Structure formats: C-alpha cells, structure tokens
C-alpha cells in the first residue's frame, strides 16, 4: 500500500482498473462524507452490490457505522489529516474489518479487508487457552475437594462461565439402584424445579449408563427429553448429556443446555469433556478414599497410622475409643504420649523396631488396668508405621479354658489308666488264683480217686471203679480247660512287638510238629511260599498252631486229607481243610470261648482255640472269619498288618 499515497490517484482513470482488481475493499469519501468511489470488492464485503452508493453520504448509506469506530476514526482523520488504522466489527454485515484510512484535503481513501476468520480463530484460541487454564486449575482443586456438592458446583460454574451456558445439571450415579439421582444444578436453577432423576427416557439413560453421550441439537423435537415444555419455556435449543466414569463404573451425568452454538460446538464440547473427565477422576478418588475410610472404620481392629517420628496421622473410631479420646484430638499426637505403663514401652519399642527393620511384628499384651488381653500387629510402610490392635480376651479365655480342659482330661485319663492298671492287676491276681487255687482241689480229686482205686480196689465193684475213672477224667478235663483259659488270658496281656514274620516258615513248622506227634496220619499239606506279615512271632505261631491244628484234627475221618495255607489278597491269609466242616448257621459261635460245634466224643478240644486265634488276630489289628459246610471242610481267613504300625 506504499504506492498508494494520495486520494488523488483514485480519481485518475488508468488506476481505476487496478483498484477494481485489488482484493481489499476500497472506497473514497469527499470532504462532505459523500461516497465518491467504491470498488466491487468493497460492495461485496459490505453486502451492497446492487446499491447506488456513489454520491450518497457515508453515514446515510451505512447508519450502523455511526456509533462505531468507523465514524469516529474517519472524522478524526479528516480533522488531523493523519492516516490511521484500526480493527472494528461491522454491525452492518456482522464481520470484522481491518481498516486503513488515508486522509487528504479532498477527503478520505479507505482500504479495508475482512479479518473475521482470523479474529474468530484468535478469539477461539484465547478462549481455549483460558479454558485449558481453567481446566488445569479445576483439576488441581477438584482432587482436594472433600464435599461432593462443592466439587459439582465447581464443575458447573466452570461450564457455565466458559461455555456461556444458561443452564447445566449434574446427576450422580447410584450403584445400588443403578440409576442417576439429582446432584447439582447451576444457571437457571430458580426457574426450573430440580429433577429427582434426569428428565430423559429410559433408553436414553441406559445409553448414558453404558457410556455413550447424547448430543441433541434440537431438544424441542427430541423425544428422549421428557421435560421439553420447560426447555421450550427457557428457550433452550440444544443439550449435551455426558456420562462420567466408565461403563463398568458409571459415576455421574453432566447435562449442558443452551444455544446450538454454545452446546454443539466441537471445541466447546471438548472442554465439557475435559471437565467431565476431571470430575470423574475426582469422584473416583473420593470414592476410593471413602472406601478406604469405611474399611478402616469398619474393621473390628483398632487402627492407627503414624509417621516415621511416631506422630499419629490417622486413627479409626475404634482406636479413638481404645485411647478414650476423640479421633481429631489424636491426630498429630505422639504415640509416646500414651506410654504410661511399663508394658507401653515395649509396645512403642516394637513400632520403632518396625520402622527401623521394615519388618512387621505381632505380640500379645495383658492390660492390667483393663483386665483384658490385646493383640497388636505392627506393619511398617513407606514413611511410617501402622498398628492394628484387637481385643483377644475372649480368645485368650477360650485358650485358657481349653488348657484347663486338657489338664482335666489328662487327669481323667491318668485316673482311668490307673483304674485300668488296678483292674489289670486284679485280673492277674485272679488268673493267678485260678491257676493255683482251682488246680489244687482237682489234684486232690484225682489223687485221692487213684488212692481209692489202688488201696480199695478189692471192696469196689466194676461199676464203682468205672465211676472213679470218670471222676478222674472229669478232673483232668477241667485242668485242661483252666490251662486253656490261662493261655487265652496270657495272650490278651502279652506285650506286642511288630516284626516281620515269615508265615510260610511258621506254617511249615506247625505241620512238621503235627506230623511228628501223629505219624499215623496221612495229610497232604500245601503251604504257599512267601507269606509275610508283621506281628508278634510267638502269637502268630500260636494262631497257626490252633488253625492248622484244627484242620489236622477235623480231617481225621477224611480219606485224602488236605490242608492249604495261603494268601488270596495282600495281608489276608487262609487255612483251608477238607474235613468235617461246620454248619454256617453256627458261624457266629465259632470264636467265642468254650464254644464248641462238635461233641467232645467226636473231636476232643477245649473250645478255646478259635477264641485264642481271634484274640491274637484282633491284637494285631486284623479280623478273622470262618466259612464252611458240614462234611465239606472249613476255611478260616484272617488279616495281619503288612507293615509295622505307627507308634502312638
């Protein structure tokens, strides 16, 4: 523009074409403010293509310029004849113009260009930068806000201020009912009755809870908005509903109401999103704090946190009760202020030790003044130490009770053992008597019967002598019974040892003895090899003596007598014969003492043998059963341990 120095140049015809092609708007006024020239660009910018304008007075043609910088600056330029430049908003066309004015004696030459886009960009930039600062400030204060209402108020104020909104609401999400409930309102609060729940359709709310925003450019025709009457009354065009939080944990809902420009503008929505995000973070932090607090308050333990100098930074209600002071009084106090008793010194030492060592510890103390037991657990953390104190008096007294019960139980067991020992001693003296005192008269019966037989045979007839022999036989038989009974008692009392026993070898030995004693018998005996068990060798020998002895005895009348000794399962052994057998109907009587399934005339015996066997097996922790049928033989199966039992 340096080459255009004077308005005279404008009137010269050769320049006219040039000026027409210039992209700036140009017009010239004479001293009387009449428009003497205007190029087509200026007509275009001033929206005056079809108007005459030339010859019209400037302020008549553009009356709205009168109160603006235009009229003032032009007048000043004419007066002082100095060029000037300014930026002004034209109310005529609602645009921003950058204007340069060049005065001369004949009038003014005015050059102007439309800088509306630049101005708006600048303004938006400034607005955004302001918003950014506001957001940062909000973020800084929001996290420290203790009250939720204050937090929501801050957020709403921010939105209203920076987005130039008439009205905005916040609803808080209630996880229990899974619905939004009224939180805070700002703007036209007085003119709108607050809604308990957002004035939105159920589907819309579901959408929001799921994390989707709702942008409605024309709420007056949007059925998702259930209170359209109010919105229409307030002249609200658009609404932007913005969920806060995530679909997993919804926190709140922010709704902005306003003109389409204010609400639907992308950069403004970005600001609203920023506010909502910050609000969400603050709410989340608050919830977390609240949860921690609730946890610390709800645990049954008293809880205290201290800094590294043992100054109290937090106590829950229970700890405050424990120390019998309000919680807020305790904050900042030194733990050592509570050291009144000797045991407190130990407690404080353990807190200190936890800080130094970084290791947690636990201990139990009895507080004499309270007559109660407490358990303290101390946990160090970065920059401090936490203590949990629990009243364990009940547990302690239960432990004490258990200990007392145990002592009582042990005493009773000892007493009972003593009684059993006495009973055992009684039993021993009884069996001693049986063995000694019961046999003496038998010996007398037998001895004097024989004396009678020897010395008085002449005076006794045959019948008398026969009676005498029967007396003697009965006496001998009773003696055998007594011996068998004593053997049984001895087995029951005998101390047990558990050592490996080769049953095959023992059985072979029994068979050999039987053959030696009764060489007339032809019995085929089959003893399986490798039969092993654990037990008391003498008792196992007695067991097989009896079982194989029985088999030997009861096969007496069988032409091809056979005895099998073997095992058909680990730890289970059998002795089988093909002898007289027995009736299974009496199987339950097999193992009782003095129970006999055969008359003494058929097979001799005391009736104690199988009782002895059963006792032996039982003492080894095993079991025994018998199977048979009359004339078909019998099988006795018994179990013995396959390994030494654990000592008890």
């Amino acid at each position: 523009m340096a080459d255009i120095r004077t308005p005279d140049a404008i009137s010269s015809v050769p320049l006219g074409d040039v000026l027409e092609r210039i992209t700036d708007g140009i017009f010239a006024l004479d001293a009387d403010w009449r428009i003497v020239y205007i190029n087509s660009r200026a007509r275009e910018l001033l929206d005056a293509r079809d108007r005459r304008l030339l010859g019209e007075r400037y302020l008549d043609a553009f009356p709205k310029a009168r109160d603006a910088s235009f009229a003032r600056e032009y007048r000043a330029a004419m007066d002082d004849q100095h060029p000037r430049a300014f930026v002004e908003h034209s109310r005529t066309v609602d645009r921003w113009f950058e204007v340069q004015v060049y005065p001369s004696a004949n009038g003014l030459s005015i050059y102007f260009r439309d800088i509306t886009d630049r101005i708006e960009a600048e303004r938006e930039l400034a607005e955004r930068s302001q918003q950014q600062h506001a957001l940062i400030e909000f973020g800084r204060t929001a996290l420290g806000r203790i009250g939720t209402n204050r937090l929501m108020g801050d957020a709403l104020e921010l939105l209203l201020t920076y987005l130039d909104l008439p009205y905005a609401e916040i609803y808080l999400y209630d996880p229990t009912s899974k619905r939004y409930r009224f939180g805070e309102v700002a703007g036209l609060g007085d003119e709108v009755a607050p809604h308990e729940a957002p004035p939105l359709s159920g589907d819309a709310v579901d959408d929001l809870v799921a994390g989707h925003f709702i942008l409605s450019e024309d709420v007056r025709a949007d059925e998702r908005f259930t209170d359209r009457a109010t919105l229409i009354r307030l002249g609200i065009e658009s609404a932007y509903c913005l969920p806060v939080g995530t679909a997993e944990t919804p926190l709140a809902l922010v709704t902005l109401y306003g003109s389409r420009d204010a609400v639907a503008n992308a950069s403004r929505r970005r600001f609203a999103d920023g506010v909502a995000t910050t609000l969400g973070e603050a709410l989340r932090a608050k919830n977390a704090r609240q949860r921690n607090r609730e946890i610390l308050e709800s645990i049954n333990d008293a809880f205290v946190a201290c800094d590294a100098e043992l100054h109290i930074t937090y106590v829950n209600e229970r700890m405050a009760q424990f120390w019998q002071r309000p919680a807020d009084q305790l904050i900042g106090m030194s733990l050592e202020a509570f050291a009144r008793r000797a045991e407190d010194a130990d407690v404080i030492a353990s807190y200190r030790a936890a800080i130094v060592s970084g290791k947690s510890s636990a201990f139990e103390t009895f507080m004499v003044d309270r007559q109660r037991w407490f358990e303290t657990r101390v946990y160090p953390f970065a920059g401090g130490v936490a203590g949990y104190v629990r009243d364990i008096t009940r547990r302690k007294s239960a432990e004490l009770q258990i200990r007392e019960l145990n002592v009582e139980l042990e005493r009773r067991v000892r007493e009972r053992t003593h009684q059993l020992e006495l009973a055992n001693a009684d039993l021993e003296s009884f069996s001693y008597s049986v063995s000694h005192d019961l046999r003496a008269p038998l010996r007398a019966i037998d001895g004097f019967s024989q004396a009678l037989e020897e010395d008085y045979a002449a005076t006794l007839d045959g019948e008398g002598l026969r009676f005498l022999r029967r007396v003697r036989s009965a006496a001998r038989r009773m003696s055998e019974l007594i011996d068998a009974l004593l053997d049984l008692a001895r087995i029951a009392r005998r101390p047990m040892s558990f050592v490996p026993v080769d049953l095959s070898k023992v059985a072979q030995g029994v068979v050999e003895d039987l053959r030696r004693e009764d060489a007339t018998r032809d019995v085929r005996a089959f003893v399986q090899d490798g039969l092993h068990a654990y037990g008391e060798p003498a008792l196992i020998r007695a067991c097989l003596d009896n079982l194989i002895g029985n088999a030997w005895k009861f096969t007496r009348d069988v032409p091809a007598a056979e005895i099998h000794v073997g095992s058909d399962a680990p730890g289970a052994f059998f002795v089988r014969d093909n002898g007289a057998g027995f009736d299974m109907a009496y199987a339950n009587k097999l193992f009782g003492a003095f129970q006999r399934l055969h008359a003494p005339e058929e097979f001799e015996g005391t009736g104690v043998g199988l009782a002895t066997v059963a006792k032996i097996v039982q003492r080894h922790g095993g079991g025994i059963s018998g199977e048979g049928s009359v004339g078909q033989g019998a099988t006795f199966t018994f179990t013995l341990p396959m390994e030494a039992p654990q000592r008890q």
Partner: protein
Amino acid sequence: MSRQYVLLIEDNDDDIELTRRAFARNHILNELVVARDGAEASALLFSEDREQLLPQFILLDLKLPKISGLELLKEIRANPRTALIPTVILTSSKQDEDLIEGYRLGVNSYVRKPVDFNEFVEAVRQVGLYWLVINQPPPADD
C-alpha cells in the same frame, strides 16, 4: 528227727498227703518234714539253735499264708546258713512272673504240680531221685 530229711513247705493238706503218698509210692525213705506256712518254715530254718539240722533239700510251694513262697525263698538265699540248701519250687502256678522271680531268687528247680496223680507221682520220683541221689550237695558247715 533223723539226720536226713526233706522239708516240704506246703499249706494244703491234700497236697501234703498226696506228696507223702508219692514219696511212699517211690520208696523214698527220707523223712518228709512239713512246714505249713512261712513262719513255721522260718522257725525251723533260721533257728538260733545251732543243733537244729537243715534239710537235704526243700520243696517249696509258692502260695502260702503269712509269708509267700518267693519271700521265703529270698530269706533262705539271704541267710548264710541256708543259702546253699537245694530248693525246688513245687507249685500249681506256671505264671511267667513266678518262674522268672523264682529263678532270679536262685531256686534250683521249678516243678509244676500235675493234676494227674500218676504224673505227680512221676514228678516227685524224679525230683527225689535227682536231689537225693544224683545231685552232689554242697559240703556241710561242720
């Protein structure tokens, strides 16, 4: 009282008589002196009278009134005068405890009285034969 005698310490009259009968049946002519309890036996064995003769051997029952046979055995072995007298337990008991204690206290033999009289006679015969004839007694004090 002849010089040679056998002391039977026994309280049961039947057993005393049967023992006498067994001696007779076996033609053992040595006198059988009977003490009916521990006190009688003590009086005889531990008499102050140095003239009192001691038995060739003792047949000792275990179950006795006042002083038990094992207690008496202990005293016999403890007394220097009687310590070496061959002593045979003749009893109905075959309790392990009695056997063990008897031998521990130094009994020379332990015989269980059989109920069958013939067996009893045989037992007495063998005991008498052994201790009176076959066995060489310890040298007498005087």
